[in-house]
């Protein structure tokens, strides 16, 4: 079949040389990528750790970094121990878990829908979860520990199913799908608003929690529930990560590489919904964390991979950082909920996203 090779020796030598170049290029590319990855991850971890220590230091009773670290290491510090472990740590751990959950949820949704705007807090999943929680609290009057999170899960899942059945199945993609989701989010927000006014909620904190997201309600019981949920979900995310990175090649290509695209997609969406819902059930729909975490992480890495670990770390930095700002840097009589600060950061981010044209490709 093949045309006769006129100069086999020269041809062969040329191919060998090419192969050597290819091998070298591969090694260099891989090495460069690993180095960048390591650097970004280390920087994010250090930043997150520094913010965590800062969060434990600040407050009415200031502690030094040394005191905080000694207390965490288990040294008995009396009053310091009470302040750190009982007062400040639950809020911090809640922030960390919420950051991880929203960061991952955003990364999953944005990848599987191939759209940087399609994060759970934009397309209404978080608002659905929030509505579920508020319905359980106010309309049904639930108080037990698990009813509220489960109801939040149901609310978020309902929105997910609705979007899937109506918009996605109907062939909506890209911006039209996102806009449909934004519509759902608004409906959910108005339902929350209605319930809050109907039930004559006096405490602004409660309203703010379910409208914008807050860490103020943290205690160890809440943290423990969320920790269990995150500990179950994160390993599952690790399991689907490889399939998801193939899915980024499109259904045909992924299918021909041995994946069941529909199954993988369903798993990814289910995990994204679950993560967004458990985080929302614990802290409300903390605005923009899920939207910003993954794109920032991917920009930092710049290698076209999923960047799940880095997205989770960026999520932690965002939530904990925003909470430090909200609690300690902003002058306020009433504690500013974390969602207000993340929203203030997220708005400009959205403008930048639009202006830089990164959303256009979706």
């Amino acid at each position, binding site marked *: 079949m093949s045309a006769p090779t006129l100069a086999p020796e020269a041809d062969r030598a040329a191919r060998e040389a090419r192969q050597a170049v290819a091998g070298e290029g591969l090694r260099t590319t891989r090495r460069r990528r690993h180095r960048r990855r390591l650097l970004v991850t280390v920087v994010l971890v250090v930043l997150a750790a520094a913010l965590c220590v800062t969060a434990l230091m600040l407050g009415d009773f200031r502690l030094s970094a040394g005191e905080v670290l000694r207390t965490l290491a288990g040294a008995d510090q009396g009053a310091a121990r009470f302040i750190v472990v009982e007062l400040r740590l639950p809020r911090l751990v809640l922030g960390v878990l919420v950051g991880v959950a929203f960061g991952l949820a955003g990364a999953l949704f944005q990848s599987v829908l191939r759209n940087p705007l399609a994060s759970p807090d934009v397309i209404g999943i978080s608002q659905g979860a929030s509505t579920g929680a508020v319905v359980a609290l106010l309309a049904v009057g639930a108080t037990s520990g698990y009813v509220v999170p489960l109801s939040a899960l149901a609310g978020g899942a309902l929105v997910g199913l609705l979007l899937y059945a109506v918009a996605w199945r109907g062939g909506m993609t890209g911006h039209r799908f996102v806009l449909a989701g934004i519509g759902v989010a608004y409906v959910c927000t108005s339902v929350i608003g209605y319930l809050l006014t109907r039930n004559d909620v006096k405490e602004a904190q409660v309203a703010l929690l379910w409208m914008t997201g807050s860490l103020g309600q943290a205690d160890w019981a809440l943290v423990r529930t969320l920790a269990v949920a995150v500990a179950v979900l994160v390993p599952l995310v690790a399991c689907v990560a490889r399939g998801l*990175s193939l899915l980024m090649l499109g259904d045909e290509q992924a299918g*021909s590489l041995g994946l069941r695209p529909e199954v993988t997609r369903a798993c990814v969406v289910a995990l994204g919904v679950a993560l967004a819902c458990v985080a929302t059930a614990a802290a409300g729909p903390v605005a923009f964390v899920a939207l910003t975490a993954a794109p920032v992480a991917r920009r930092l890495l710049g290698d076209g991979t999923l960047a799940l670990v880095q997205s989770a770390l960026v999520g932690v930095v965002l939530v904990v950082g925003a909470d430090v700002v909200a609690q300690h840097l902003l002058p306020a009589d009433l504690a500013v909920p974390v969602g207000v600060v993340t929203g203030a950061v997220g708005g400009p981010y959205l403008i930048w996203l639009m202006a830089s044209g990164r959303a256009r490709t979706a």
Partner: protein
Amino acid sequence: MSLVAERPTDLRTITDRLPAEALQHHEPVSLVARGVHLAYDQRTVVHGVDLAVPAGAVTVIVGANGCGKSTLLRGLGRILKPTAGSVELGGQDLQRMRPRDVASVLGLLPQQPVAPEGITVADLVGRGRHPHQGAFRRWSAADADAVAVALALTDTHELAGRRVEELSGGQRQRVWVAMMLAQDPSIMLLDEPTTYLDIAHQVDVLDLLAELNEERGTTVVMVLHELNLAARYADHLVVMCEGRVLREGAPGEVLDADCVQEAFGLTARVVPDPVTGSPLVVPVGRRGARVVDVADDEAASM
């Protein structure tokens, strides 16, 4: 470098330059479509195609735009489930096999593949290795070798570190072919692997596929639009028309003026190719007659 240095230098086959893991000759595996109907939603696009892909040969599918070539390829590649009939791979119903088992034998390069934003050529081609990696077995030296060979064979060796979105259409197309080579299936389904390529690279890619077929027994099934290249490279030519197989067989027997007229609605002369003797389709078109008969008038009017 190490790949080639330790091999004997007197052999000049591709196989010689492939790393050990990829060295085996591909076993011929049968791929048979039996009365396959394929549909999108409710609209049937392929109507009862019977096709036995000759194992170890090059099959080329041609036909007019929208006649269902890509759809048939998706059916053969397990991407689309037949609404009636079945596709059998090595005697087994394709739909009943595990996707990963299929992927290690059968690869499909779609007409319009999608690259994730920001991915490098090295990473993209590396993803072709997925069917060879177990659930826990990660990147290995054999994978790296296979990718290097694939890049070298497709003349994309200098692009390893580049982002796919920054490449020209033709470079990108060759990267996709490289990904298929890295996957190294014994049956390759390629949907228009030569689009965007300049004439030299078209011939390069087709030569490469022909060599793989000849030296390693890879079964190649591809959709091509260029009838003359199709006739030259095909052992088995399949002409499709409106979701059915119009004719199939050796190019010399299948491709004649009637066939071109029926499949494409194009008046053409078919003459022997001066290089290979395979059929050469020379379109007459609407302007063809004028060019020959009234060349003077034409020159005057322009």
